[in-house]
C-alpha cells in the first residue's frame, strides 16, 4: 500500500515537472516565433530600403547626365531668343523649348530630392504646426471644395530640425496623393499632427523606429486604398500603380526623399476600398528633451 502511495506521489511529481517543462518549451517556441516574425519585418524593411537606395542611385546618375545635356540646351535657347526678332513666326516654338527645358530641370531636381542629392538645404529648429497650416492653405486651393479636409494640429507637439520649404512640399504632395485616391471614391482627407512617444512595444512592431519622442504627421483618406503589392512600391519614382494620366509618379518619391533627409520614418497603412493613412515620424529635436 505504502509502495503504491509512493509511486503515485512520484508520478505526480513527474507530471508537474513535465507540465513545467512543457510550459517553458511553449514559451521558448513563442519567443522564437516572435523573434522570427520581427526578423522577417526587419529583413523586409532592409530589402525595401536597399531597393529604394539602388533606385535612388540610378535615378541620381540619370539626373546628372540630364543636367549636363540641359545646360547647353538652356543657354543656346536663351541665345536664340535674344537674337530672334520679336515678330518671328518661330519665336513661340523657341519659347516652348525653353519652357520644356525648365520642366525637365524641375523633374531632375525632384529626382535628386528623392535620391537625397539635391542642393544642400539648411535645417533649422522649428515648430512643424505653422508649416503644416501654411501648406494646408495651398492644399485647400488645389482640392475641390466637395472634398472635406479635416485637420487636427497640436500646436505644442515639439520642435524638429527641418527645412520649412521642403516640409510644405511634403504636406502638399501627401495631400495631392490622398486627393487622387479620394477622387475615385471617397469624401475626405485628414491631416493630423501630434506628439508621439514610441515605446518598446511600438518599435518591436515598427523596427525602423527607435524608442523615443516624435512629431507624427498623419495624412489619411477614405479613398480607394491600396493592396500590398502597390503599397510596397509607392515610394519608387515614376511608379503610378499602373494608373495612367496621374502625374509623373514622383510625388511620393519626393515625400520619401524629404522625410529621410529629416531623419523621419514613414509607416503606411492601407486597405483596398477602405482608405489609407500615411504616418511620418519626425524625431523631436534633442534640445527639447534637454529643456
Amino acid at each position: 500500500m505504502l509502495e503504491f502511495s509512493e509511486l503515485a506521489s512520484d508520478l505526480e511529481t513527474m507530471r508537474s515537472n513535465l507540465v513545467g517543462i512543457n510550459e517553458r518549451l511553449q514559451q521558448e517556441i513563442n519567443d522564437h516565433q516572435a523573434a522570427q516574425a520581427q526578423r522577417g519585418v526587419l529583413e523586409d524593411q532592409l530589402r525595401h530600403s536597399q531597393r529604394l537606395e539602388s533606385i535612388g542611385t540610378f535615378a541620381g546618375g540619370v539626373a546628372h547626365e540630364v543636367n549636363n545635356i540641359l545646360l547647353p540646351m538652356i543657354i543656346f535657347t536663351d541665345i536664340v531668343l535674344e537674337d530672334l526678332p520679336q515678330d518671328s513666326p518661330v519665336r513661340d516654338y523657341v519659347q516652348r523649348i525653353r519652357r520644356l527645358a525648365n520642366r525637365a530641370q524641375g523633374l531632375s531636381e525632384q529626382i535628386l530630392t528623392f535620391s537625397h542629392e539635391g542642393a544642400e538645404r539648411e535645417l533649422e529648429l522649428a515648430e512643424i504646426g505653422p508649416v503644416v497650416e501654411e501648406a494646408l492653405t495651398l492644399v485647400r486651393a488645389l482640392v475641390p471644395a466637395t472634398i472635406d479636409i479635416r485637420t487636427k494640429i497640436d500646436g505644442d507637439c515639439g520642435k524638429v530640425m527641418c527645412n520649412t520649404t521642403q516640409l510644405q512640399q511634403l504636406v502638399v504632395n501627401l495631400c495631392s496623393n490622398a486627393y487622387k485616391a479620394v477622387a475615385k471614391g471617397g469624401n475626405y482627407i485628414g491631416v493630423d499632427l501630434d506628439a508621439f512617444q514610441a515605446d518598446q512595444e511600438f518599435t518591436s512592431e515598427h523596427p525602423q523606429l527607435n524608442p523615443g519622442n516624435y512629431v507624427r504627421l498623419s495624412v489619411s483618406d477614405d479613398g480607394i486604398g491600396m493592396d500590398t503589392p502597390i503599397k510596397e512600391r509607392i515610394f519608387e519614382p515614376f511608379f503610378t500603380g499602373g494608373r495612367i494620366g496621374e502625374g509623373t509618379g514622383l510625388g511620393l518619391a519626393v515625400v520619401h526623399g524629404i522625410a529621410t533627409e529629416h531623419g523621419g520614418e514613414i509607416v503606411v497603412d492601407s486597405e483596398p476600398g477602405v482608405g489609407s493613412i500615411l504616418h511620418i515620424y519626425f524625431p523631436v529635436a534633442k534640445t527639447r528633451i534637454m529643456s
Partner: protein
Amino acid sequence: MVRIIIIDDEQDVRDALQEVLKRAGFEADAAASGNEGLELLRKSPSDLVITDIIMPGKDGVKIISDIRAEFPETRIIAISGGGNVAPLAYEPNAIKTEAYLASASVAGADVTLTKPFDGKELVQAVQDLANDNQAD
C-alpha cells in the same frame, strides 16, 4: 578685358559657356581636359578658370589644386551636374557631386555652380569675381 578659360570634356557645354561669356564682353577660351587647360593657362595667363569637376584624365579637384599652386591669383569657378557622378554613376558607392563640389571648395574654388544654370547666373558669378579682383 577679363580673360577666362573654360575646361569641360563636353563640346556642347564648352561652346555654350564660351558663347554666353563672349556676348557678355569677356574673352573666353576653351579646353577639353585639365592638362589642356593648364597648358593654355601657361601660354596666356587668365583671370578666371571655369572647370567641370568630373572629366576623364585629370579630375576637376586636381586641376583646381594645380592651378592654385601655379597661379594663385587666378579665380576659379567649379561646375557639376548634381546626382552621382560618371563613370561610377550607377554604382552603389558612386561619389555624390555634392561631395565633389565640397572638395572643389576645399581645393580652392572661389565659387561652385550646379548644372544646369542659365547664362545670367554664370555671367553674374563671373562679374562678381571680376569685381572682387578689382577691389583687391
